[in-house]
C-alpha cells in the first residue's frame, strides 16, 4: 500500500496525532472483477490512548470500499494528539483511494485471496499522487496551507489532519496453481520461528528439519519430495538464488540460515513447476523469501532459553524509507540439546531502496553469514534401544566427537525496477555470492577402506567435505502493458533472461580423529558451471472469468570439470599415466508451463496447471560430451479455491497433483552425499484452510497426502550388489501424510497508563506419518506441538516460546544403512535404522523492544 501522509500545520498548542501502525487496506475482493476505482473519506477519532475510536464515513464511492477502509483504519495505532503536553482525543480525516487494478493486479489479488487465503493487501511500495497534494516525501508531513482546527474548549481536536491513503493490488507474480501460496506477515508470525527455514513450515505439505546441526542447511520435505538440502526446491532471497549447483554435500545445497526471520515480509511457496520464471532445482517447487520491514524504527529482540541458548537480533528500519530499506543483525550461541551440539552463528543483512523518479526503484542488498557447529551425528536405533547410547547423545568415540561444520556466505545484489502504465514492468538484477562449506561427518562408524592405500582400514569414516563456490549472475525481464486484443480478450507478454556462473572447488577426504589426519582422498575437483535461461510468459484474460497463462522456458547449462583424482590408479596397478580426468558437457533443458484459471461463480476459482522443469546434474557425474544431463520433471495439478461470498474470512482450497521425475536422488550414507535412484512418481492431494473470523484471530490447517513410488531403481551391479531399492517401493524418507495447523490470537487486555496492555498467543501442530526407509524399514511418526505467548505494552513485548511442548523424543531425520561403531562383538552388516535426534522441549524467553 502506498501511504501518503499529508499533515496540516497544527496550532502551537496542539500536536496532531501521529500514526505508528498503519495496517493497509485491502482492495475489495467483490470488486476485483469490475476493476473499478473509487474514493472513501473517513472521519476518524484518535483517542487519547492512541487507539482508533469512532469512525464515520464522510463519503464513499462504493460501500465495499468503505468497509475495507474502515476495517483497515480500526487497526491503526497513533501517538495521540497532545495539547500542552497532555494527550487528547482528536478527529482526523483519512481519504482512501482505491485504484482500478490492472489485469495483473487482479490476478495478484486473486492469488492472495486464493493462494494464501488472505485478501489482497495494498501495495506500499509505489508512490502515487492523488492530484490534490504535492508530494515532498511520501512519509513526511507537508502542509497545504489550510488552517487546522484545535478548539481548546473541545475535548476533541477536530478534523485538522488528513492522512491520504492509496490502495492498489500488490504486484506479485500471478498465481500459477492452487498450490501456489503466498504466506504474508500475519501467517508467518502466527507461530514463533527460530530461523528462516522454520517459516516454511506454515506452507501446506512442507516439513523442515535440521538433522545435521546449526551450521548445515536444513532438510526440506515438500509434497512427496525429500528435497534434502535443496536439491528439489529452488530457493531464493529476493533475486539471489540460494541453491548451489554441484555442491559436494548435495546437489542444489541451499542454506537459509543466514536469513533473519524478523525481516522476512512474505514467503512465496510454489508447489510444482508451473511458472516460466522457475529455473534450476524447481522440481518439487520453489520458495522465495521477500525481505522487508513494515514496522519502522528500531527493534531489539533478546532471547535466552534452554541449553544456554542466547540470541540477539537488532533491526533498524529508518522512518520515511520503504519497507525494503533496513539493516539487521542476528547473533546466536547455544550449548545444544545434547552431546557435541554447541554452535555459534552471526548474520547481517542490509538493504536500501532508492527511488529514481516516480516509477523507478533501485534496491541494493548485502548479506553476510558465518556459523560453526559441533555435530552429534546419527545413532543406530538399536544402540539406543539397547542402552548403548542415549537418545540425545553422540557415540563416545573420537571419530564421532570430531564431527563439525563451518559455513559462511556473503552476497550482494542490485535490482533496478521500472513500473510503467497498465502493468508494464522492466527489471534488471545483478548479484554475486561467495559461499564456503566444510563439514566433518561420520555416518557409518568404521567401515571404510582407503582407496589410496587399501591396507588402511578401520580408522573411522570421518568424511570431510569442502566446497568453495563463487557465483555471480544477472536477471532481466520486461512485461508489456496489458492490452485489449479482441472484445473482452486482453493480454500481456513477459520475456526474461537469467544467467549464473559458478566457480567451484570441492574436496572430500577421510580423516582420522582426533588429529584429523587425512587417510584417504576421494574428491578433488574444480568445476565451472554456467546456466543461461530464457523464458516467455503470456497472460490472456477473457472477460473476468477466464485467464490463461502459458509460457516456455529453456536453459543452457555447460560445465568444465577438472577432476584431479579421476582415472584413479589402484595401488596394485602399474602407473602408466598421471591421474586426472578433465571433461566438458553441455545440455539444453526446455519445457512448457501453462495455467488455466476459471472463475465460474463468485468466490470460486478452478485452476489447472501443467509444467515441465529440470534439475541440473552433479557435474562430477558427467562424462565427456554428455549432452542431456538433466533430471526432467513433469507436473500437473487440478485444484479449486473457494472463498464464500459474504464470508471472506474463510478460504479453502484443494488440489490433486501428479509429478514424475526422470532421475531422483537419495541420501547415501557411505559417501555422505546423494545417489541416483532412477525415475519416480508422486500422486497426491492437498487441502488447505485458512480462517480469520475476527481481526484478532487467525487459524490455518493443511493436510497433504502423497503416494510416492520408485519406478525403476538401479539394478544390482558390481559397485552396488545390494541396491537399497526395488521397483514399486515407496520412495524413501518421504512421509505420505503431512498435517500442519496453526492458530494465533492477538488482543488487548486492559489499559495501563492510557496504553493498552495486549497479549498474543500462538500454537502450531505438525504431524508426519511414518516415513518409509530403504531396506524395508519405516521410521516413526512425528507429532510436534509448539506454543508461544507474549504480553505487549507500548514498546515492550515480553514473550515465551516453547518448542516440542510435550517433550516427545522424535527423529529429525531417519535413515537405513550399514554402520559399525565398534561397540558390539559381532557387527551387523544388514542396513539398520539410524536417526538424528530432534530437539527436546525447548523454552525461550524473549524480550522485544520496538522504538
Amino acid at each position, binding site marked *: 500500500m502506498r501511504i501518503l501522509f499529508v499533515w496540516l500545520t497544527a496550532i502551537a498548542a496542539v500536536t496532531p496525532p501521529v500514526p505508528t501502525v498503519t495496517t493497509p487496506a485491502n482492495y475489495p475482493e467483490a470488486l476485483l472483477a469490475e476493476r473499478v476505482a473509487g474514493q472513501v473519506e473517513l472521519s476518524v477519532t484518535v483517542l487519547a490512548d492512541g487507539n482508533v475510536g469512532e469512525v464515520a464515513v464522510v463519503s464513499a464511492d462504493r460501500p465495499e470500499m468503505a468497509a475495507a477502509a474502515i476495517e483497515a483504519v480500526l487497526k491503526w495505532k497513533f501517538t495521540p494528539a497532545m495539547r500542552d503536553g497532555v494527550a487528547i482525543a482528536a478527529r482526523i480525516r483519512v481519504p482512501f483511494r482505491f485504484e482500478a487494478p490492472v489485469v495483473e493486479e487482479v490476478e495478484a489479488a486473486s492469488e492472495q485471496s486464493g493462494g494464501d487465503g488472505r485478501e489482497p493487501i495494498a501495495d506500499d511500495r509505489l508512490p502515487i499522487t492523488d492530484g490534490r497534494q504535492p508530494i515532498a516525501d511520501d512519509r513526511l508531513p507537508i502542509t497545504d496551507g489550510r488552517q487546522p482546527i484545535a478548539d481548546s474548549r473541545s475535548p476533541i481536536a477536530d478534523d485538522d489532519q488528513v492522512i491520504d491513503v492509496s490502495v492498489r493490488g500488490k504486484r506479485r507474480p500471478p498465481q500459477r496453481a492452487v498450490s501456489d501460496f503466498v504466506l504474508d506477515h500475519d501467517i508467518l508470525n502466527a507461530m514463533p520461528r527460530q530461523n528462516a527455514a522454520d517459516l516454511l513450515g506454515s506452507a501446506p505439505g512442507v516439513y523442515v528439519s535440521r538433522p545435521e546441526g546449526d551450521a548445515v542447511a536444513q532438510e526440506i520435505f515438500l509434497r512427496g519430495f525429500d528435497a534434502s538440502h535443496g536439491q528439489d526446491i529452488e530457493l531464493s532471497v529476493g533475486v539471489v538464488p540460494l541453491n548451489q549447483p554441484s555442491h559436494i554435500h548435495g546437489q542444489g545445497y541451499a542454506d537459509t540460515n543466514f536469513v533473519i526471520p524478523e525481516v522476512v515480509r512474505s514467503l512465496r511457496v510454489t508447489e510444482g513447476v508451473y511458472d516460466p520464471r522457475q529455473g534450476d532445482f524447481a522440481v518439487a517447487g520453489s520458495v522465495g523469501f521477500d525481505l522487508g520491514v513494515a514496522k519502522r524504527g528500531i527493534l531489539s529482540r533478546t532471547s535466552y532459553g534452554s541449553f544456554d541458548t542466547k540470541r540477539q537480533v537488532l533491526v533498524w528500519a529508518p522512518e520515511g524509507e520503504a519497507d525494503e530499506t533496513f539493516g539487521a543483525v542476528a547473533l546466536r550461541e547455544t550449548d545444544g540439546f545434547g552431546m557435541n551440539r554447541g554452535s555459534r552463528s552471526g548474520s547481517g543483512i542490509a538493504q536500501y531502496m532508492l527511488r529514481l523518479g516516480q516509477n523507478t526503484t533501485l534496491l541494493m542488498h548485502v548479506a553476510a553469514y558465518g556459523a560453526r557447529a559441533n555435530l552429534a551425528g546419527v545413532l543406530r536405533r538399536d544402540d539406543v534401544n539397547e542402552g548403548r547410547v542415549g537418545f540425545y547423545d553422540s557415540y563416545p568415540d573420537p571419530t564421532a566427537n570430531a564431527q563439525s561444520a563451518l559455513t559462511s556466505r556473503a552476497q550482494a545484489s542490485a535490482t533496478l525496477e521500472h513500473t510503467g502504465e497498465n502493468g508494464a514492468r522492466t527489471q534488471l538484477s545483478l548479484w554475486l555470492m561467495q559461499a564456503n562449506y566444510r563439514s566433518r561427518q561420520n555416518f557409518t562408524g568404521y567401515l571404510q577402506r582407503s582407496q589410496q592405500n587399501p591396507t588402511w582400514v*578401520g580408522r573411522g569414516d570421518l568424511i570431510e567435505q569442502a566446497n568453495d563456490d563463487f557465483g555471480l549472475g544477472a536477471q532481466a525481464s520486461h512485461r508489456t502493458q496489458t492490452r485489449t486484443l479482441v472484445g473482452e480478450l486482453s493480454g500481456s507478454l513477459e520475456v526474461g533472461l537469467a544467467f549464473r556462473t559458478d566457480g567451484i572447488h570441492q574436496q572430500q577426504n577421510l580423516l582420522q580423529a582426533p588429529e584429523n589426519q587425512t587417510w584417504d582422498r576421494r574428491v578433488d575437483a574444480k568445476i565451472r558451471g554456467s546456466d543461461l535461461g530464457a523464458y516467455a510468459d503470456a497472460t490472456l484474460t477473457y472477460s473476468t472469468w477466464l485467464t490463461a497463462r502459458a509460457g516456455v522456458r529453456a536453459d543452457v547449462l555447460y560445465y568444465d570439470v577438472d577432476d584431479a583424482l579421476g582415472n584413479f590408479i589402484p595401488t596394485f596397478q602399474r602407473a602408466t599415466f598421471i591421474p586426472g580426468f578433465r571433461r566438458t558437457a553441455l545440455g539444453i533443458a526446455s519445457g512448457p508451463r501453462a495455467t488455466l484459471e476459471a472463475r465460474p461463480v463468485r468466490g470460486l476459482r478452478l485452476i489447472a496447471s501443467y509444467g515441465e522443469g529440470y534439475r541440473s546434474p552433479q557435474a562430477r557425474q558427467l562424462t565427456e560430451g554428455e549432452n542431456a544431463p538433466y533430471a526432467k520433471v513433469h507436473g500437473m495439478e487440478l485444484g479449486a479455491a473457494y472463498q464464500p461470498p459474504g464470508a471472506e474470512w474463510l478460504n479453502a482450497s484443494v488440489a490433486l497433483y501428479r509429478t514424475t521425475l526422470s532421475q531422483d536422488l537419495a541420501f547415501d550414507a557411505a559417501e555422505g552425499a546423494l545417489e541416483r535412484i532412477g525415475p519416480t512418481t508422486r500422486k497426491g492431494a492437498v487441502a488447505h484452510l485458512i480462517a480469520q473470523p475476527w481481526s484478532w484471530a487467525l487459524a490455518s490447517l493443511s493436510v497433504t497426502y502423497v503416494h510416492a513410488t520408485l519406478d525403476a531403481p538401479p539394478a*544390482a551391479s558390481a559397485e552396488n550388489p*545390494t541396491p*537399497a531399492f526395488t521397483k514399486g517401493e515407496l520412495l524413501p524418507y518421504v512421509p505420505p501424510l503431512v498435517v500442519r495447523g496453526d492458530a494465533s490470537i492477538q488482543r488487548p487486555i486492559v489499559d495501563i497508563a492510557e496504553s493498552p496492555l495486549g497479549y498474543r498467543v500462538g500454537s502450531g501442530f505438525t504431524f508426519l506419518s*511414518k516415513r518409509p*526407509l530403504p531396506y524395508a524399514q519405516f521410521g516413526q511418526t512425528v507429532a510436534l506441538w509448539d506454543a508461544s505467548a507474549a504480553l505487549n505494552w507500548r514498546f515492550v513485548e515480553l514473550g515465551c516460546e516453547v518448542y516440542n511442548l510435550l517433550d516427545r523424543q522424535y527423529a529429525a531425520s531417519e535413515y537405513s544403512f550399514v554402520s559399525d561403531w565398534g561397540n558390539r562383538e559381532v557387527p551387523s552388516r*544388514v542396513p539398520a535404522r539410524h536417526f538424528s535426534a530432534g530437539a527436546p522441549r525447548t523454552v525461550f524467553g524473549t524480550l522485544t523492544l520496538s522504538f
Partner: protein
Amino acid sequence: MKHFSLVFAFVCVACGETGQERLGVDVSVRGGETTFTAGLWEVTLSEATVAIGPVYFCATAAASADLCPAATFEFTESVTVDALSAQAQGVGTASGVTGNVRSAAYDYGISWLTTQNQATPTSGAVDGHSARFSGVATTTGRTLAFTALLDVTPQLQGTYAVQGARAAASITGDTTQLVITARPDLWFAAVDFDSAAPADATELEIGSNSVAGNTVRIGMSANAPLTFTWE
C-alpha cells in the same frame, strides 16, 4: 496429542508397501557323518566342536567386506556347535530382508574387524580357536588317535575367514528357518593320514599350520564350506 497421532497413524496404515519385508528366522546347525573314509583310512570322529559365526548373506555372487557392503541377511552371533550331531541344534535367530541371496561370508569364531589390529577370537570360539576335533583313524594294521585344534582366520583386517561361499536362495516372507550344515567328515576326508604321522605313531596332534591342519582348514573354508538351507 497422542490421540491425534494414533488417528493419523491409523489413517495412514494403508499408505503403501516398501516392496521388501523385514523378518527373522530361526537358525539351527546340523553336523555330518561320524564315520567316513579318508583314502585307505577309516576315520571315526568322536568330537567335532566348531565355532560358527557371524554369517552374512549377500545378493552379490562374491560376498566380501568390499563387494558386499550391505548384507541381505545375517546371523550376528558366534556359537559353538557339535558338528557331529545329526539333530538340528537351535543356535539363535538370523534377521534381514526378503530377497535373493547368492553368496555368504562368515567366520569360524575368529574375526578380524576393521577396528582390530589382529584377528581375535569371539565369544563362541572353542577355547580361543575355530574348532576342536578328536577321533580315531584306522587302516590295515594301524590305528591312529588324533586331536586337532584349528584356527580359520581372516587374512586381512576387515575381511572374513570365508568369502564368496555359494548360498543361492530366495528368501520370502514365508521363510521361517535357516539350517546350516557343517561337514567335518568332508573336511577330514582329504587328510593324508599316511604322511600325517610317523609310521609307528599311534597318536597325532594336528596343528593349524601342519599339512593335515591346512587340509582341514581348506576343507572348512573352500572345499567343503558350510551349506545353507532356507525352509
